[in-house]
């Protein structure tokens, strides 16, 4: 449908306005804590976008959000909810790290793609298990992915303090649960002096690839068809169960890649603090938010991931600059998510109203058959 430029700009105002409203509420709390809201938010903006390094950090943060978010797009299109991003990231990272450590003297150009492949396989398996359980055993994927996350964390803790522990640490009394560092040749290229690594560009490329795959290939079409109407799809001869598994496998593979990118692009080894978040930074959950804010569209997820990454990075900078408790920052993140997702309602209402005015002004366009979104 034709929409004017102005209307599109107005559309954008809703989520931004909602976020602004959340920040106004946050400002009240900040003021109550005796901190200048202006100073605090200036620090947040500066910390997220203010310098080259800040912008790079935002993009580094956004990368796993985008990768997980792309997986969420695929899964949701196939009508499955993947809350297992955390576990899939961990398993992908574990496998990729194990490969890099087991084969320490390969050329980087060979090992890095191999590690990516291995990580995607790991994530795919960790996502595929809930997929198979859902398709063939009717086990709900929300349940199984939550459980698989917990299992992955314990697996990571076991491996990092046992079989995969850094040999240096193994000899120390304190035994820090981390692997040895990867060969320098295996590091993803960086935009020196920042930490922005090749993974970010890769994630953007993948966003386009996923977009193309979902809308321009038969497989993608069938996944969307299965998500849109499983009964009709079955009737049309699509093996619905297989596509359900495929949706979770792909979703897991992308999350697994996100885990590999964190190791090969950011930390260069795996370290655990006992929790999933310590390694993933919560990207397995926040990626869901990014995808949904991006309207479950691979390309929409790109700016959504960047903005959400900016919020996370800027919030930490705010803590440093004005010394507010990190708890406030967490609460504010939550508020932004709630407000932005609620603003959809007003945006859609405005859209409807606009459409109504248009149809009154112009004769009805020829009807198109329903197609999966």
């Amino acid at each position, binding site marked *: 449908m034709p929409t004017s430029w102005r209307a599109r700009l107005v559309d954008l105002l809703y989520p931004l306005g909602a976020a602004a409203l959340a920040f106004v509420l946050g400002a009240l709390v900040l003021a109550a804590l005796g901190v200048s809201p202006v100073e605090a938010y200036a620090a947040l903006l500066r910390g997220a976008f203010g310098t080259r390094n800040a912008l790079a950090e935002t993009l580094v943060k956004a990368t796993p959000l985008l990768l997980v978010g792309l997986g969420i797009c695929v899964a949701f299109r196939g009508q499955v909810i993947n809350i297992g991003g955390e576990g899939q990231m961990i398993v992908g990272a574990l496998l990729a790290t194990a490969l890099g450590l087991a084969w320490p003297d390969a050329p980087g150009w060979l090992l890095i793609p191999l590690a990516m492949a291995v990580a995607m396989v790991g994530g795919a398996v960790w996502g595929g298990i809930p997929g198979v359980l859902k398709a063939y055993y009717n086990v709900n994927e929300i349940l199984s992915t939550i459980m698989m996350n917990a299992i992955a964390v314990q697996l990571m803790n076991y491996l990092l303090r046992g079989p995969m522990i850094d040999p240096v640490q193994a000899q120390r009394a*304190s035994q820090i*649960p981390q692997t040895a560092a990867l060969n320098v040749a295996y590091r993803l290229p960086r935009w020196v*002096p920042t930490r922005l690594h090749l993974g970010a560009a890769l994630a953007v490329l993948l966003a386009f690839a996923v977009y193309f795959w979902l809308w321009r290939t038969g497989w993608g079409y069938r996944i969307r068809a299965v998500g849109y109407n499983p009964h009709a799809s079955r009737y049309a001869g699509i093996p619905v169960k297989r596509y359900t598994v495929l949706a979770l496998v792909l979703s897991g593979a992308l999350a697994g890649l996100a885990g590999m990118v964190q190791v090969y692009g950011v930390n260069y080894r795996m370290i655990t*603090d006992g929790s999933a978040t310590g390694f993933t930074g919560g990207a397995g959950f926040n990626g869901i938010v990014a995808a949904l804010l991006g309207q479950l569209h691979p390309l929409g997820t790109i700016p959504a991931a960047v903005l959400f990454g900016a919020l996370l990075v800027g919030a930490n900078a705010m803590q440093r600059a004005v010394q507010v408790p990190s708890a406030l920052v967490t609460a504010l993140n939550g508020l932004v998510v709630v407000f932005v997702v609620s603003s959809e309602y007003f945006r859609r209402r405005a859209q409807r109203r606009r459409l109504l005015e248009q149809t009154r002004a112009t004769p009805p366009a020829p009807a198109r058959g329903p197609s999966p979104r």
Partner: protein
Amino acid sequence: MRRLFLFALLVGLALGLVACGGGEATQAPAAEEARPFRIAVVMPSAINDMAFSQSMYDALVKLQQDMGGPAKLEFVYSENMYVVDDAAAAIRDYASQGYDLVIAHGSQYGSSLQEIAPDFPETSFAWGTTVDTFKEMGIDNVFAYEARSEQGGYVNGVMAALLSQSGVIGVVGPIETGDAKLYIDGFKAGVLATNPDAQVNVNYIGSFSDTALAAEAAKTHIQAGADVMTGTAQMVVGAISVAKDHGVLWFGTQADQSSLAPEIVVANQVYDWTVALKPMVENIQKGVRGGEAYSLTLANGGLTIQYNPAFNLPAEVKDAAQKTIQGIIDGSIQIPVGGE
């Protein structure tokens, strides 16, 4: 295509913000003599966790008092930095802001520090808890600090063995690594050296935050006959509460936990990081930026056993504890864990 447009717009917006934001605010260098010493610390949990992070926060407050208030020492902190790469970003940011000493208070931050420190040769860093200063890698601006928590663990173990009637002692830990493992291994050694027939049941609950599971682990220990317990990390407050409910004795570590259950906490191993921080500050003021490793021990006063004044500790147990402390200090007691 509507969304492509949206994307382009948002990217444009972001870039616009960068342009508006401009360069980093430059700090005017203050006159050298008036300038306070500035410390930044990055911590994995909250400053009021009654455990690891609180012990560092308390030390900084004390150091500030000892050095003559905020005019002499300024410190800032980032708490709850459990995400390793967020911590790395914080460390880098503090370093670029020109702090004299940036403390990475968590063994999981070492890898990041190894990468960041060479980029800021004028800044001193400290990493705990470890003995690694990366000196052998040619990095000379990192201090290391650790707590020989097995020492206090051993003393607590000796007292626990003497106080236990049942001969069964329960331990609640997070995951079997790092400071927790050191303390628990030392505690076990102390118990068994005092009463070889005692039984020490250890439960690692796989989490630093699951207070409810820590509590249930404590109940399990009690069911298994334990009448004395200990534990380490921030989730043990759940276990302490259970111990209090059941009148089971408790030994604390990392911070003073007596206030939580004055009737059952016997003693705490308390960390005083100022013992490591003071020489670091002195060294930096002399121009030495790193390369030294500091340990908190019973001998140097970094570790102290603080008896809960509200608990009526039998004199002979206290004597045994004091003798053990002496023995560890003069080397006549060797603890079969930890150390290099």
